[in-house]
């Protein structure tokens, strides 16, 4: 069960993919355990294929774990994300847990400002207020005003990613999962992202992230886990490594 101070407690989480067409199994990771507290930033390290993104997607429940637990302290009470009903996961995604990938999943013919405003509309904000905030965050991430009403499907990868970040970070969540969000960003947008993450962290948002260049967020990292070696390193108190 979750300790009184932790927001998330991952216990023995295991993910295996069964590939029927190859009649084989692919083991992504096994027995991963760690705690995460409010306002804490945890970096996932490991070589390509170590299971960093898969771990994030398993916590988010795009992937179904085959073993273990993900105890999450929600506003409604404690819930095991590994085994929770789909509808509970859907509601938590709407209100408490965010996931940022390096790709924008844009619907065709929807303007950038409407894509960014959508989470606020779903949360009950008025159309005018949602639009105002959407424009603010598009501006913060460096999307030029002449693009706000354009369709992002025609944007470059970097511009799409700015829209993606503005949308994903417009509502403060309690838990934020970041899967290489700085990929394809220019320097200005990267700085805006770090500022926003720093703000969210200081508001108590817990963050788990995978970064190509962890140096981008070095100042925010509290702890890291290397999924290849299963070693947790505390960035703030000592250099001592703790095996998990």
């Amino acid at each position, binding site marked *: 069960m979750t300790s009184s101070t932790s927001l998330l407690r991952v216990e023995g989480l295991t993910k295996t*993919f*069964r*590939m*029927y*067409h190859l*009649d084989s199994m692919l083991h992504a990771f096994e027995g991963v355990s760690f705690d995460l507290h409010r306002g804490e930033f945890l970096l996932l390290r490991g070589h390509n294929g170590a299971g960093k993104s898969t771990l994030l*997607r398993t916590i988010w*429940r*795009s*992937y*179904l774990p085959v073993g273990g637990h993900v105890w999450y302290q*929600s506003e*409604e*009470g404690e*819930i*095991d994300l590994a*085994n*929770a*009903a*789909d*509808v*509970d*996961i*859907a*509601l938590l995604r709407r209100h408490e847990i965010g996931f940022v990938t390096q790709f924008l999943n844009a*619907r*065709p*013919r*929807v303007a950038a400002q409407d894509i960014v405003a*959508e989470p606020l*509309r*779903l949360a009950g904000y008025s159309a005018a207020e949602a639009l105002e905030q959407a424009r603010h965050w598009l501006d913060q991430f460096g999307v030029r005003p002449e693009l706000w009403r354009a369709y992002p499907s025609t944007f470059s990868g970097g511009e799409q990613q700015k829209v993606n970040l503005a949308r994903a970070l417009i509502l403060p969540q309690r838990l934020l999962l970041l899967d290489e969000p700085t990929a394809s960003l220019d320097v200005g947008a990267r700085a805006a992202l770090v500022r926003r993450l720093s703000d969210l962290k200081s508001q108590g948002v817990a963050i788990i992230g995978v970064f190509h260049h962890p140096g981008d967020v070095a100042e925010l990292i509290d702890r890291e886990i290397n999924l290849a070696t299963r070693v947790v390193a505390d960035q703030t108190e000592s250099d001592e490594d703790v095996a998990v």
Partner: protein
Amino acid sequence: MNLDMSQPALERTAPRLMRTEPLLTMRDVSRRFGEVEALRNVDVTVYPGEVMGIVGESGSGKSTLLRMMNLEDTPDSGDYRLQLPNREDGNLFDLARYDRRMLCARHIGIVYQNPHLGLLMRHSSSGNVAERLLVAGERSFDVLRGKAREALDASEFPLARMDARPIELSGGMQQRVQLAKAIALEPALLLLDEPTTGLDVSVQALVLDTLKRLQRDRRITMVLVSHDLGVIRTMADRVMVMRHGEVVEQGLADQVFQDPQHPYTQQLVHAKL
């Protein structure tokens, strides 16, 4: 390759944390047409405000299931309940034909793939929408026309053409008239049977965007049947996969597409262009 298709991957049954009650609950619904078992022990739960997508190949039973939800047909066995305000709970399949018709007219909207099934092609577009309001008891001409206009506008139908007959309109415009008719009474449940099949991609995108906006702004609960996995992936919160009249998998839309559990779902997802 000999795949074990016998074990369905159904929704997790962990105790619920949130207090949301389902809008729609179907249990153990079976329907046979002669030798063909169109539906076999199908369970469905749909929650308020969500889009439930149903996918499967032709003949998998998805449209039959949608017709059951719209009470156009009754099963050989099964239970169907809708959580509606000011209504006694009970099995809707037990209602008399007139009561079923009134309940559908008032609380359920439907958009068919073929507009001929949903529209009177020689009546005006506004008249088609008003007809739904008439069934629900509205009699004032001004109110009828005003509400029809409002529903057509919400469906992004060009109001300058509201007196045109559907037979004079393009396929995309006909779907908008169907949509306006379906939402005119602000239904609790909107059923969509292949609403974009046959439309060119630009019109398809417009219709999907309209549906998404309606869901977001009006919190309309939708059940969307499509064989187009791209449409389902864009629209649905949760997905049911049907095969030979049975539900073989259901889950969150991204999970079903990214980590399908059932061999048939894996085949389906891998076959997507």
